[in-house]
Structures are given as C-alpha cells and as structure tokens.
C-alpha cells in the first residue's frame, strides 16, 4: 500500500514538475534569442516580443522552481532505501546540478528581472543567456542521474551500496547523451509550440496594427524552430531506441507489446482489443519495429516472453515485464503527438513560404491546439521511460519495491493528497496567468508608462 502510494506520489510530482520544465528551458532559450535579435538589429519589435514572451516564461519558471524543490527531497522522503543504495553515484550529479545549474539560473534570473534598468543592454542580455545555459546544464545533470538508473555504468556494488568507480563513465554514458539531446530538443520544441500558438492567435489583429506584423514574424520564427527541433528530437529518439534494443530490450519489446521474438518485426500504429496477442483490430507497418530497434529490414527484435525467461534465469523467479498497456500507449502518445507537431509546424512554414501566414482560421486553430502536443509528448515519453524500466528502479541492480522508505501508508496518502490539491491549484493559476499574459496589449509593452514603477528610482518590479 505504502509502496503503491509512493509510486503514485513520485509519478504525480515528477510529471507535474515536467509540465513546466521543458516549457521553461524552451522559453528561456527563445526569449534569449529574441532579445539578442533586438540588440543586434536594434529592433524594437523583437525587443517587445522578448518582453512579451518573457512574462510568460517567468510564470512557467516560478511553478517549475517551486515544484523542483520538492524533487530535491522526494528521494529521501519516499525512496529512502533507493537513496542509500545509489547516493554515492546518483547524489553526485544532483549536487553538481545544484552548484552549477541552480545557482546560475536563480541568481541571473533575479538580475534579468530586476536588472533591466540597472545593467547595460549587453550585460542584461548576458543574464538571460546564463539563465538559459543554467536550465540546459540542469537538464544534463539530472539526466546523468536518470541515465544511470536506466543503464548503470562506472560502479561496483559494495556492502549493499552502489559505489562510484569512474565518474567520467557516468558523464559519458551513451544513454545520457541520447536522452539529453532528445529532452533538450523536445524542450525547445515545447517553448516553440507555445510561442507559435500564441503568436498565430495574436496575428488576428487589425491589418494596420503593428502587432500583426510583429506576431507574424514570431509565428514564422516559431514554426521553423518547432519543425527543425521536432525532426531532430525524432532522430535523437531513434538513436535512443537502438540503445534500448541493446541496453533494455524488455522496454523496447514493451513499447510494442511484442510477445515473441521476431525478425523483420512490424510496428503497430493502433490496436483495439487487448495487447495479449489477439487484438480485434490493428494497423501495422511492416518491418518498422525492426528498423527502429536495429536499423535493418529483417533485424531481430526480442520478445517479452523471451526477455522474461532470460531475466528470470539471470535474476531469479519473478515478473520482469512492465505494465504493457501503459508502455504501449504512452509510446504511441509520444510518437503521435510528435508527428502532429511536425504536421502543424510544417503547415506554418508552408504558409509563411506562400506569404499567407495568419490568413487561415484552420491553421490558427491547429497551432493553438498544438500548444498541448509537446506537453502530452513530454509527459508520455517520461511515463514510457520510467514505467518501461519496471520492475527495476535501477535497471538490473535494484527493484522498485526494494527502494521505498519505511514511512507509513497514512503519511504517504496524506502528503500525496496534499500535493494533488496544491499542484492542481498551481496548474489552474498558471494557466489563468499565462492566458492573461498572452492577451496583454502589445503596444503597452516596454514603453515608459508601463514601466513607471520599475525605474531605478524605486527599484520595484514585482
């Protein structure tokens, strides 16, 4: 009971945190690019756009930061045995994340928010770039810790603890670099999709309104960025799939609910019925799974039954398959959302090419709805990654059931319920505030009347 609740709590607090993390990483980068364009080209439109999206970025950042504090302690709270087992290795990147990334991000965000009038334009621009670098460094180090759980390297097990033997091996872990590229590119796409959706929506302004030209520019910029980053995300994901085939073949098989080893395995786009091999209806693409996993037409993909037998022989009797409906559908949700993002952004680029951007109502609707696509893809991707590793918490070394704290079920239930209430409130507030910021009159941004309270004389911003 306490174990199930602890799993639910961890799932809730991480997935919720991760609604905001990619958005923040993406928007920090996009705002930094906009502010750079404003400075280099001495362009007031880019300046206003950077301020406009800067407000939205700060809302996302605020919720991301406070929910991130919880995660720094969540391992000790609910996963004490896990923490003790992995601390030697897992703790190091976490501590380094704090020292290198969190300090950078949090200090320079203060300078960026409050320093607009106090720092030279170049220095002020540098602060947002340092924030962006901080968010990306943060992703690297936390993924280093996660990649080690997926594919442990550079360690030995000594006295009931995993002990670090080679720190460079942990940082050079192939799993880390593949997931770092995949995650950061997806984060840029997430920020891009938000800028795209809001910009298209704002392009509706009257033709003679300067706002229209500004947001058309932002739309084209965001559509191109989303298209490029989602395609690159998919390429990085393909690379990850090939690593999975070698490092975690059970997860690969579970992504497809492939029960028995096959050569030239097909990939099912959709299954109706159950996943146990007798589906009522499905659409399959021949050979695609072999291509994804092995890069060859008739490559062998190991099935769940074979992996189960192999793992049982290696680790002793037990169930070594993850929850299949979850891995199967989360994988499809991720890939499907990615494909739709490519479609929407390609449509945007095409309209821009035809100089028809902003004219169509249907594109406007698609782009607006497109804001949620990366959010779905990010969450389902992580659900797939983490659920697909089960029953392991550290692949091959420790099972999730063994990693839990000794805290009573009542306490875990209480805190989980409280997190659900608090986080739901935060989500509602964040959405309301983002909607409000997205409607902010464009001509009021960055002009003196808006900033009477933020002049150096008062020092007030909040």
């Amino acid at each position, binding site marked *: 009971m306490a174990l199930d609740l602890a799993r639910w709590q961890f799932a809730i607090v991480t997935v919720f945190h991760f609604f905001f993390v990619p958005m923040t990483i993406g928007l920090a980068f996009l705002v930094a690019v906009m502010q750079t364009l404003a400075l280099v080209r001495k362009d007031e439109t880019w300046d206003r756009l950077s301020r406009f999206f800067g*407000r939205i970025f*700060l*809302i996302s*950042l*605020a919720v991301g*930061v*406070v929910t991130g*504090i*919880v995660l720094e*302690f969540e*391992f*000790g*709270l*609910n996963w*004490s*045995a896990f*923490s*003790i087992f*992995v*601390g*030697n*290795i897992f*703790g*190091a990147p*976490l*501590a*380094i994340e*704090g*020292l290198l990334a*969190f*300090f950078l991000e*949090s*200090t*320079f*965000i*203060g*300078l960026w928010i409050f*320093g607009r009038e106090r*720092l030279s334009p170049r220095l002020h621009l540098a602060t947002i770039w340092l924030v962006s670098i901080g968010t990306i460094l943060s992703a690297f180090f936390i993924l280093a810790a996660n990649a080690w759980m997926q594919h442990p390297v550079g360690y030995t097990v000594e006295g009931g*603890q995993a*002990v*670090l*033997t080679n720190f460079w091996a942990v940082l050079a872990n192939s799993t880390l670099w593949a997931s770092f590229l995949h995650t950061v590119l997806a984060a840029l796409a997430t920020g891009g999709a938000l800028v795209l959706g809001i910009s298209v929506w704002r392009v509706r302004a009257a033709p003679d309104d300067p706002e229209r030209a500004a947001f058309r520019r932002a739309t084209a910029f965001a559509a191109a960025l989303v298209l490029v980053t989602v395609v690159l995300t998919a390429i990085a994901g393909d690379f990850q799939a090939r690593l999975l085939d070698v490092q975690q073949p059970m997860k690969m098989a579970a992504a497809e609910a492939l029960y028995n080893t096959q050569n030239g395995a097909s990939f099912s786009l959709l299954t109706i019925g159950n996943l146990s091999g007798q589906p009522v209806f499905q659409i399959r693409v021949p050979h695609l799974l072999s291509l994804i996993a092995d890069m060859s037409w008739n490559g062998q993909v190991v099935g769940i039954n074979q992996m189960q037998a192999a793992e049982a022989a290696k680790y002793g009797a037990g169930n070594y398959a993850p929850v299949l409906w979850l891995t199967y559908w989360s994988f499809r949700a991720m890939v499907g959302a990615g494909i739709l993002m490519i479609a929407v952004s390609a449509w945007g680029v095409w309209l821009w090419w035809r100089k028809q951007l902003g004219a169509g109502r249907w594109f406007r609707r698609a782009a607006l709805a497109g804001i949620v696509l990366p959010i779905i893809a990010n969450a389902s991707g992580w659900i797939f990654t983490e659920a697909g590793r089960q029953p392991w918490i550290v692949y091959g070394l420790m099972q999730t059931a063994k990693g839990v*704290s*000794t*805290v009573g079920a009542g306490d875990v239930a*209480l*805190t989980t319920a*409280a997190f659900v209430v*608090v986080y739901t409130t935060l989500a509602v507030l964040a959405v309301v505030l983002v909607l*409000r910021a997205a409607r*902010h009159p464009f001509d009021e941004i960055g002009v003196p009347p808006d*900033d009477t*309270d933020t002049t*150096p004389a*008062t*020092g*007030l*911003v*909040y």
Partner: protein
Amino acid sequence: MATYTGLSALWFSLIGLLWAGYFFLEGFDFGVGMVSPLVSRDDTDRRLCMNAVGPVWDGNEVWLLVAGGATFAAFPLWYGLLFQGAYLALFLVLLALIARGVSFEFRGKFDDPRWRRVWDVANFAGSLVAALIWGVAFTNFVHGLPLSAAGYTGGLIGLLNPLALVGGLAALAVFAFHGAVFLSLKTSGELMQRAQRVARMAGGAAVILLAATVVAVAAGGRPWQTLAGALPGTVPLVLGVLAVAALATAALLVIRGRDGLAFAGTGAAILLTMGAIFGAMWPAVIPASNGASLALTVGAAASHPYTLEVMTVVAAIFTPLVLLYQGWTYWVFRRRLQRPAAVAAPAPGAGGG
C-alpha cells in the same frame, strides 16, 4: 568503520557551511516575509517588502537545494534516514516554500486587493512555517533524536517537544530580527523607520529565546560525546554563547541606529549558531538522545572516498565562482528602494516587463 576520515570531515563541514549560508541568506527573506504585516501600512509598503528581497530570494533558496544534494551525494544514509524520519516536518517545509515561492511572481499579476492579499498571506505564512520548522528540526538534531536501528520513527509529534518548540520560536525571532534589520537597510522613509522599530522589538525577543535554547540544549548533555573525535562540550557551548553575544550586540546597535553593523551582528549570530549545532553534532550526522552507539556517524554515513574526491574537485572549482556572482548581485541591487511618488498600483503582469 572508522568514525570519520579527512574527506568525510571536510564534507560534514561543507554541509554545515551550506546550511549556515542558507539560514544567513534565506533567514532575512523569511524575516522580511514575517515582519511585512507589522511594518506595512498599505499595499505599496507590502509591495516594497516583497521587492526588497525580490532579486535575490531565489538564489538564496538554492543554498538549501545544494545542501540537500550535497548530503545525498556525500552521506547517502544521512539523506535517506533523516528525511524519511522527519517526513511530515519536511513536507510542511516544502509546502511553505511552494506557497511563498510563487507569491513573489504571482502577487502583482492582478490588480485586485483580494488577489494580493492571498499572496501576502502566502508569503507571510510560508516564511513563518518554514522558519519555525527549521528551528524545531535543528534543535532536535543538536539535542539528539530517540533512534532505533531503523533511524528516527517518532513522527512529527515526537519532533514537536517543548525544547524543540522553544528552538523553533528562537529561529522565528532571530530571522524576524535579521529580516527587520535587512529591511531597515533596504528601504527608506517611514517604512524604514517602522522596520527599525520592529527590529528593536524583535531583537530583545530573539536574544532571550536564543539564549534560552542554548542553555536548554547545553543542559541536555550529549550521549554521543563518547564517540571518537567528538569535540568537548565547551566548544559548541562557547560558539552558542558567542552567537547570543553577537545577537545582543546587534540588538544594542539597532537601538543606536547602526543598522549596517547590526546586520553584521545578526548574520554572525546565525553563522555562529550553525557552527555550534554542527560542532555539537560532530562526529554524528544524526545524533541519538538514547545512547552513543545508536547515533549515525559521519564515517558510517559517508560515501566512498572516490565520490567525495570528485565532489571536492567540482566544489573547489565552482564554489568561488558562485560566491563571486552571487555577491555581485547584492552589489548591483545595493540601493535602497524608494516608495513610488505616485502611489500607483503595480502594473498588472509586471515582472520582466
């Protein structure tokens, strides 16, 4: 296993420094949050209070995250056993930090008195609850917890013993004092004068409560004192007495209007208190009140030397850099805040704008 090694001793000290830095810095953030209702006459005053720590609070809070991360990496058993043991207490701190964390960004987003009221309360309550629980927690640590082989299992109620509550109130008063002095240095006009008045009141209370805590903890004795390497009881006691002396000096300086020096005094008192706490705990990371052998020691909790070496190299390279740029932030924002001439409401959505 040996009680400790050189590297584990270094990391114990560094974690102590991280907590000391955290309480020095976020201590005044908490204090400003707590005294804001006392010093503010209107919305603009409350807004000024929040902006006084606006550019720096986030960076200050990272000291806590790094302390947590460093504990995880350097002493996995300390991290694992302490947080599951102090489960609900830490949970309450986290909720408090969430509430006050978002209050900064959210408060100015709607031009509506009730909306602002909500975030003023969130900032106040978040600061108060976090400060109180940190005080309770560290008083328990330095006094020792009743431990079994599974660590501490006494729950939240066990932590809320009378001694720890006095320690919690001491933390409240010390941070309120520290924050009021900080506010005196960062504001101007009537708000500054009211902050000075509150600082004078909080100063007296802080001195009495901290002194009471030091005396009560010292009287409690330390069963883990028999562990190899433990410092004689006089060392933490002297540090504790010095902390009270620094605080008393600060209280006197505030009365004489020497706010800058007083801030050095409240800061020194916080650093010395943390020195006393970690000095008293050493070489235990979770001291036991019920027998020396039950304490979790630095040596037993420490990571393998290689992890500590890696961490030492990384810390040696990057800590000076962090201190440099964080220090620079305080230099950039060294000026006092001015009350806006026209008491205009904050622009909705201000922030980064």
